[in-house]
């Protein structure tokens, strides 16, 4: 609903990006890349894919990351920022990057968050470093004079991302941690129902683990709010050719299809994703094997 509305070229580009800086932030790494061409094409919710390990790497598959921030060309060229956790072979390699290293980057990829046409109140819910794309989204929403209320949750204080920045970006910030080390002890969906009622929230944006997205969607639905979820599915290519990152999503026509989260997503209307059926091909899905048919 938001794509193709301007004449601007939004096609992704592939660039050899130079590492500008890499910093530890709590449990995460904050990586800034000089990646000309990507910033001016980026909208909140887009992601980039990084090749890891260099040109002869044995880890071939590109790694996908939500774009945290972009800055258009300045003194050092346009920059793209991402946040990642070093919990696999590819991200551990990324954690060793130093300024001036070169990384092959493709982006911006995927469909961005849909923005409301009216200045309505919005909740932005992030789990762990899933909060990363929500800050530029908050800016866009504020420009449209939408109310912005952020809910950030994580297992513990060190795995929250961007709480201070949230306080600048949003009218209200609610923090939850499972261990109670800071904020409300619990998960993001504990304070969410009251927040939605208090501020008459009409759109709930969320990014984080799949279980959280489903739970947030349930709360939003119960409240009669729209939900926009940025999903996490493992991808091989990020550009729509490998067909690995599919999940069952119901279309406007009521038909469920196995759709690619990299090009049809990563942002989906939460009520269209068949959360309980992820990891299956639900009966009746377009093109599913018919029982007893040949």
């Amino acid at each position, binding site marked *: 609903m938001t794509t193709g509305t301007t004449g601007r070229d939004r*096609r*992704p*580009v*592939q660039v050899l990006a130079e590492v500008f800086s890499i910093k530890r932030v709590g449990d995460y790494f904050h990586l800034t890349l000089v990646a000309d061409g990507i910033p001016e094409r980026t909208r909140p919710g887009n992601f980039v894919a990084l*090749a890891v390990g260099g040109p002869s*790497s*044995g*880890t*071939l*598959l*590109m790694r996908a990351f939500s774009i945290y921030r972009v800055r258009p060309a300045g003194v050092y060229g346009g920059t793209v920022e991402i946040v990642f956790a070093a919990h696999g*072979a590819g991200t551990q390699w990324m954690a060793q990057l130093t300024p001036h290293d070169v990384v*092959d980057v*493709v982006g911006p990829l995927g469909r961005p968050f849909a923005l409301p046409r009216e200045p309505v109140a919005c909740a932005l819910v992030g789990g762990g470093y899933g909060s990363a794309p929500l800050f530029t989204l908050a800016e866009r929403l504020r420009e449209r004079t939408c109310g912005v209320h952020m809910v950030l949750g994580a297992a513990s204080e060190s795995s929250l991302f961007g709480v201070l920045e949230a306080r600048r970006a949003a009218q209200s910030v609610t923090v939850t941690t499972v261990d109670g080390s800071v904020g409300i002890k619990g998960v993001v969906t504990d304070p969410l129902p009251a927040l939605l009622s208090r501020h008459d929230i009409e759109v709930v944006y969320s990014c984080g683990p799949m279980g959280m997205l489903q739970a947030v969607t349930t709360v939003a639905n119960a409240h009669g709010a729209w939900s926009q979820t940025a999903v996490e*599915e*493992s991808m*091989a*290519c990020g*550009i*729509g*050719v*490998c*067909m*690995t*990152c*599919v*999940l069952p999503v119901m279309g406007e026509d009521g038909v469920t*299809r*196995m759709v690619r989260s990299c*090009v049809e997503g990563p942002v989906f209307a939460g009520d269209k994703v068949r959360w309980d059926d*992820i*990891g*299956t*091909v639900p009966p009746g*899905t*377009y*093109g*599913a*094997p018919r029982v007893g048919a*040949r």
Partner: protein
Amino acid sequence: MAAHGAPLRPEDVDLSTVLADAYLDNPVMTASGCAAAGRELHQFFDVAELGAVVTKSIMRDPRSGRATPRMAETPSGMLNSIGLQGPGIDAFLSTDLPWLLQHDARPIVSIAGGSLGEYAELARRVGNSPGVAAIEVNISCPNVENRGLVFACDPVQAGRVLSVVRRDVPRGVAVFAKLSPDVTDIVEVSRAVLEAGADGLVMINTLLGLHLDPGTLRPTLGGVTGGLSGPAVKPVALRAVWQVAAALPSVPIIGVGGIRTGADALEFLAAGASAVQVGTAIFNDPAAPIRVVRELRAELAARGIGKVSEVIGRAHQPASPVAQPLA
């Protein structure tokens, strides 16, 4: 075999190649299943600059594919268990094929069926569509419902598929059989499909493999087993091309399996392939196919080889002073 002399300028190398009835500007194609129908890659390079675009295998009916997870990364490769997800032949012919032709791509259409009847119908409809450069018959996808019934694992069944396809495809449209390396004797399967009417061979499809989730110690993939691809399989693919080229020297072969660089492509040509396909490398670098064209040109130029045809099958010739690229 022409003598290899002083290095050439890359632009002076003739990359054109002949594959049965198909003439290609260069020998580099996409591999089926790694490039959809070309449109996504066209964002990164002009698909008309490839020798051909090989489509993801088209089936008769729309197909949802398998449940996720569909992919597991493995050392220098990956396993996939997509299950031939696709829109079906009607949507392909009305949308994807016209797009490829409008963009001046050379389409090689991969077809896959669950029965001889389906293969025949697909062959008829694709073969009679104007602009199709050749047909690649996928008889070796490991991700069909009944993994015991991969046509390419049985020379008799493989021959039957190729004979119905060849019967229904007009002369002038070359038919290539894509073979599985998971067989005892790939030369025997090659002979069977060639006798049945195949004009050439594509080697290799993925190898059947397994990945276990280290946490659960259960299979990672929704489809349990998957097809292994990427640089990990390159020596297997190169061996298959070499064996078949040695046994059947005049047969057109398209080499595929783990090709990531122009140097890789050159090895496949030397082993006996007349063209090559780039697949999994696309998942590391969306511009990989066009980069391989550029790198292959440079590899040949550095060796003073002016024509692709001069290097095809070079590995089967007696040792001679092949020029090494100058450092």
